[in-house]
């Protein structure tokens, strides 16, 4: 079946799933109770009349079904509404997106760039000291809580050694820029969060590459390739890695799905103004328009990423048919 037909069929599946998500999110919200009540609970000066007016303004006094449909329509027209506290949701997100993307892409690229060679090496030299070290450190790495890693790095490299700033996207005053250069300042601030984030991603990917490679190297066609006199490099990379990368593609695909989810934990620790950090803040405030918008956006991205991954999968593995 052609790629187009496959994509269309999967897109059709997307629709009910998407509706399911929106329904779920909407329901969760409404379960929380009256948003106005929650939001203004701490302020004793707001009268009930004002609350009512607010409710009316936000359309909260209309029947639930109508509110849901209204929201859906807004979604489809890309009207993400107004945050309770920060203005247009869409501009809020737009502001934060870049910081998140920066961190995410750097994390992805660096972790893959390190994990793939390390995983391959570990697989090739199975049972050696290298392999044992890599495997065990990675196992430990998957167990370390990311937030602790971040805090530890800030403490050591930020507070005690003063090598890097302890957070934020850039320095508040131009006079603080290293060598007076803005770009350098941005990079300087990027080092710690990017390192921590990359380290967090590294461990599971190394294990994945290693186990995939081990599985592949056990196969008969690797033995046959060697027996044909092909060079070791050809055997390992052309035949071995090419097959071993297939599950990595799935991983990368999933990664892109969650791209905007950002890393709420890492961003919060480093005061990194990205979507993840924003989500944490908005959730604390129960600022529903923002919450909704981000969740729906991310879900959409995940769905699309899954689709793209499936298609790519079929492309790189001839055994898979797009049935």
């Amino acid at each position, binding site marked *: 079946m052609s790629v187009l037909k496959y994509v269309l069929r999967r897109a059709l599946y997307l629709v009910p799933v998407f509706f399911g998500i929106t329904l779920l999110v909407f329901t*969760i919200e409404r379960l*929380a*109770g009256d948003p106005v009540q929650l939001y203004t609970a701490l302020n004793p000066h707001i009268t009930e009349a004002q609350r009512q007016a607010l409710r009316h303004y936000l359309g909260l006094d209309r029947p639930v079904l109508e509110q849901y449909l209204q929201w859906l329509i807004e979604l489809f027209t890309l009207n993400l509404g107004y945050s309770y506290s920060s203005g247009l949701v869409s501009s809020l997100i737009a502001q934060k997106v870049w910081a998140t993307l920066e961190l995410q892409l750097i994390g992805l690229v660096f972790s893959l760039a390190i994990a793939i060679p390390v995983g391959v090496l570990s697989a090739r030299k199975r049972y050696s000291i290298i392999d044992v070290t890599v495997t065990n450190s990675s196992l430990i790495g998957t167990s370390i809580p990311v937030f602790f890693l971040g*805090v530890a790095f800030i403490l050591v490299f930020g507070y005690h050694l003063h090598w890097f700033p302890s957070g934020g996207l850039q320095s508040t005053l131009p006079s603080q820029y290293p060598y007076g250069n803005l770009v350098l300042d941005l990079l300087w601030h990027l080092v710690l969060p990017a390192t921590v984030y990359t380290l967090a991603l590294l461990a599971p990917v190394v294990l994945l590459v290693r186990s995939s490679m081990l599985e592949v190297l056990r196969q008969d066609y690797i033995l046959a390739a060697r027996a044909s006199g092909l060079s070791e490099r050809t055997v390992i990379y052309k035949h071995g890695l090419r097959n071993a990368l297939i599950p990595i593609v799935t991983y990368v695909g999933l990664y892109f799905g969650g791209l905007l*989810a950002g890393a709420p934990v890492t961003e919060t620790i480093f005061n990194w103004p990205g979507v993840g950090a924003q989500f944490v803040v908005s*959730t604390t405030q129960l600022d529903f328009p923002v919450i909704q918008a981000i969740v729906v956006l*991310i879900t959409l991205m*995940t769905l699309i990423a899954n689709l793209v991954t499936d298609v790519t999968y079929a492309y790189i593995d001839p055994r898979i048919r797009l049935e």
Partner: protein
Amino acid sequence: MPATITVSEQRVDRGHGVSQWALAWRRLKKNKVAIGGLAIVGFFAVLAAFDGWPFVLTSNDRGLFALYPPQCVAGFSPACLTSGPTINATPSGAHPFGTDALGHDVYSEIVYGTAAAFIVGLGATGFAMAIAVTIGLAAGYFGGWIDNVLMRLTEVFLVIPFFLLLLVFLQIMIKLNPSATGGLWLVVFIIGAFSWPGAARIVRGEVLRVREFEYIAASRQIGASSSRILSRHLFPNVLHIIIVLATLGIAASVLTEAAVSFLGFGAPNSNTWGQQMNIASSYINQAWWAITFPAIFLTIFVMGFNLLGNGLRDALDPRLRE
């Protein structure tokens, strides 16, 4: 050629029947890393059983067995709030790991946190696996529209950004119910309610694989009822994957709860390591030990389960049957 009459004492080893669980246990024993994991888990289990249990649910009740100085027992004795006990370095003796900002002995806190970790791990994973196994078995065995519906449902849950919705849920629940003493159970419940989809899909995959075994078809032909087939034949064969998923799930749910608590979304009165680290993070410059030691123990705890889970996966893998 008639059968053997050998002169030698080295008899032909015909092998005696060994159950597959015994075989798996033998394989597991050979895996030193996995045994290490088992030892770690055992260590923490003992720790929790003997010191932790009654003191998990509220942070004010410390009981009589802790190692902190008597003036801090009741809570807010001024001596505990000022520089003295709060900023203790780590001498041996009274406070091997120092004290935290509220004057609690960090070592005792870690012990209490162990029990909480087990509650989170076992509770959330137990709940999630119960759902996952039910759905996985049903979808895999019955197929057809049941499978379709269940898998769509699973997909919806898989696509949702689990961590984000977890935060939202927790915030709502906590806001609704600020003084809930059952806070930790709520966290457990919510984590469990969101972590079943991955496991469900894997269980279903195993069921599909096992279903094709000929003896299942044979049982069906003899006329065995569905429930009999499910319980006697299918379930034992997917049990191995359930065990692995559960072990790894415990590690994952404890980490998740820690992250969530650290960000401030956990149950405020529960005394998990994540909560301890949350409180300690504000005082990190003065008392780095209050966050570091719980973190180390958390890492070791999670690592124990991860190592054990990986070892179990290798030991129980049906493809490696000798």
